[in-house]
């Protein structure tokens, strides 16, 4: 639970600025549904970048799969082919040995048992795996025999191999148990005799030699090679696909004179790959069975790698997409906010102009009746001073003095109101800085006295008259002094200093001993919407407007501050403003 809430807190930190736009009531007008915009952007960008990646990976998948499958087929064919050659050679070699014996030897050995035993020993020495050797006459009777069994005089007349050999001249048998009841196979060769009859020379081979050839193949786990005959009986033992000399559990592939590969399933439904070849001049089919699962093992590792790469690319792409979309929507949101604030400001400034006009109108109208009151009271005062009967009446004199004083005060108020509310259009005038600042201070006098802030003004007498726009200048100093007031506690001290900077420039500095501004904040202090006062107190526009106004008057503004000691704003202005105003910021 703790981790979850912590994660949520972390996620909330990275929540983009626009996320809650429109959900809080204080934010007012919202130009777009930013969240929808963001979702659309993320979706579209993800699709555009992920679809090609997905297609690419699918291609890689299919191609790699095919490549590995092909390679396996080829490998299987090669191995089967080689084994087929080995086996074919094995049988031919033995048959050739028999032929050689038949050619070399005279007919003595037919009946000479010792001679036959000699030949058998030689064969065993030369080839190995040969069990016995026998000579059968045309009647199918074994007339001579060398070997471990007592098979002399056995009658083979009706046996298939005998019939076959008589017909074809030579014969290679299946593996069978025969009279001796052990698995063996025979190679028989017919030898015509000069008298028109024939003999058959028969050699019995041990199956182990063939099994050895097959097991010596380096096959992976659960793969094996074996022989079966054309009826599907297993000729060498199999671990997985049936009993020795019984039917194999696999389908028998159709005849082909070349090595082939076939894909099929075993009886438990596992996909397998069978490489097979029909051995020439023999009843044997060589089968090499591999489990697809085993041979595709390499593919699985490769596929896993591909999946990893794919996964990581997708995550990276999504991160970039999220980053870009968030950045973009944030930028749009900021721009909209700036626009909104500018619009609000424009609205409020036009409202200010209306209020200013109203105030000026009221002030004008009040001035005339004030003059009537003033003159009438003045006349009463004059009469009091001249006529003896009233000159002693202190109370009446004081009353009339109060009336006159109040008239004067009202006159002062209307004058200030007019002075300040008048110029909203920039207009270049020759102005005395001292009077402008005094005018601004008159608005802040009350606050200064409440908060016990001492104000020191240091402007030399020979300070030049400057040509610039009155209302801009007033607003600049009003903003700066206001700002200084907000930075100070009770009993603060405000210094306003002015001096000539050069032939064409003047410098005015406003120094407070308030809380100061951190270095980091100094960098951003003139940026729009930067505020340290919190959302409720400031719009963050005051200093940026001031900056805009100073730039408009072709001046420069800078700030120096030490935390806890105070802040100095320095404004440098030209003595003569050319007249054309530059508008750089939203403070127009």
């Amino acid at each position, binding site marked *: 639970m703790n981790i979850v809430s912590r994660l949520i807190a972390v996620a909330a930190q990275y929540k983009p600025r626009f996320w809650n736009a429109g959900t809080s009531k204080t934010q007012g007008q919202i130009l777009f549904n930013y969240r929808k915009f963001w979702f659309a952007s993320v979706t579209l960008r993800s699709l555009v970048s992920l679809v090609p990646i997905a297609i690419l990976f699918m291609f890689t998948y299919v191609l790699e799969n095919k490549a590995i499958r092909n390679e396996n087929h080829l490998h299987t064919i090669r191995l089967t082919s080689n084994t087929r050659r080995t086996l074919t050679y094995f049988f031919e070699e033995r048959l050739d040995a028999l032929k050689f014996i038949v050619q070399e030897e005279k007919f003595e050995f037919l009946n000479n048992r010792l001679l036959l035993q000699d030949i058998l020993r030689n064969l065993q020495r030369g080839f190995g795996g040969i069990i016995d050797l026998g000579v059968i006459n045309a009647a199918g009777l074994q007339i001579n025999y060398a070997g471990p069994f007592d098979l002399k005089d056995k009658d083979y007349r009706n046996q298939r191999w005998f019939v076959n050999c008589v017909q074809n001249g030579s014969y290679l048998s299946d593996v069978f148990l025969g009279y001796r009841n052990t698995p063996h196979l025979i190679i028989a060769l017919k030898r015509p005799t000069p008298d028109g009859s024939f003999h058959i020379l028969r050699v019995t081979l041990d199956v182990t030699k063939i099994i050895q050839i097959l097991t010596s193949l380096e096959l992976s786990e659960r793969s094996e090679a074996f022989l079966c005959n054309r009826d599907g009986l297993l000729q060498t033992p199999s671990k997985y696909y049936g009993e020795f000399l019984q039917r194999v559990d696999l389908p028998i592939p159709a005849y082909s004179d070349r090595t082939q590969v076939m894909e099929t399933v075993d009886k438990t439904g596992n996909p397998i790959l069978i490489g097979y070849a029909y051995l020439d001049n023999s009843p044997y089919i060589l089968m090499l069975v591999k489990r697809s699962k085993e041979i595709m093992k390499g593919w699985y590792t490769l596929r896993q790698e591909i999946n990893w790469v794919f996964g990581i690319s997708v995550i990276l792409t999504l991160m970039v997409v999220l980053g870009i979309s968030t950045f973009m929507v944030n930028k749009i949101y900021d721009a909209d906010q700036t626009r909104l604030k500018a619009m609000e400001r424009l609205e409020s400034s036009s409202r200010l102009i209306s209020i200013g006009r109203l105030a000026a109108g009221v002030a004008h109208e009040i001035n005339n009746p004030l*003059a009537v009151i003033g*003159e009438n009271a003045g006349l009463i005062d*004059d009469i009091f001073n001249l006529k003896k009967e009233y000159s002693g009446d202190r109370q009446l004199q004081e009353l009339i003095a109060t009336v006159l004083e109040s008239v004067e005060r009202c006159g002062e108020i209307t004058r200030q109101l007019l002075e300040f509310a008048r110029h909203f259009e920039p207009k270049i005038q020759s102005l005395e800085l001292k009077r402008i600042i005094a005018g601004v201070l008159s608005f802040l006098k009350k606050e200064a006295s409440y908060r016990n802030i001492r104000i020191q003004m240091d402007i030399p007498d020979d300070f030049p008259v400057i040509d610039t726009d009155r209302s801009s200048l007033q607003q600049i100093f009003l903003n700066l002094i206001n700002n200084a007031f907000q930075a100070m506690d009770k009993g603060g001290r405000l210094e306003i200093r002015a001096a000539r900077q050069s032939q064409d420039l003047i410098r005015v500095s406003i120094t407070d001993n308030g809380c100061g501004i951190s270095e980091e904040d100094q960098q951003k202090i003139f940026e729009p919407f930067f505020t340290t006062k919190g959302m409720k107190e400031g719009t963050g526009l005051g200093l940026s407007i001031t900056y805009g106004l100073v730039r408009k008057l072709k001046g420069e503004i800078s700030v120096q501050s030490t935390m806890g000691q105070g802040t100095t704003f320095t404004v440098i202005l030209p003595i003569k403003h050319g007249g054309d105003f530059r508008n750089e910021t939203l403070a127009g």
Partner: protein
Amino acid sequence: MKLLLVDDEEKFISRLAERLKLRGYKADWATTFDDALARAGAEKYDIAVLDVKMPSMSGIDLKSKIERITPGIKFIFITGHGSEQDYDTVCQEAICCIIKPFKIEALVEQIEQALNS
């Protein structure tokens, strides 16, 4: 030393005239355009104190009419409409422009300056 005071507000201009008389000036007053011109024609004044903006007449027009009748006469404008800066142009044609309400001492000072110059 004769002054002609013109303002549409009778209760203001009559009291002002009376106060100036108390201070030793000869002051006549008028509240209408015609009355003012009639007085200017009847007598020779040294200084005319005119309201800039009156209903149905303009202080500037009145000034040029009076100037024609009495060449060399000096003018002081008074006004309740606006502040000093508003009447920069008006003031260039007169000695000065005083904003209502004003202290009588301010007017007296301007009159004395006009006479001495």
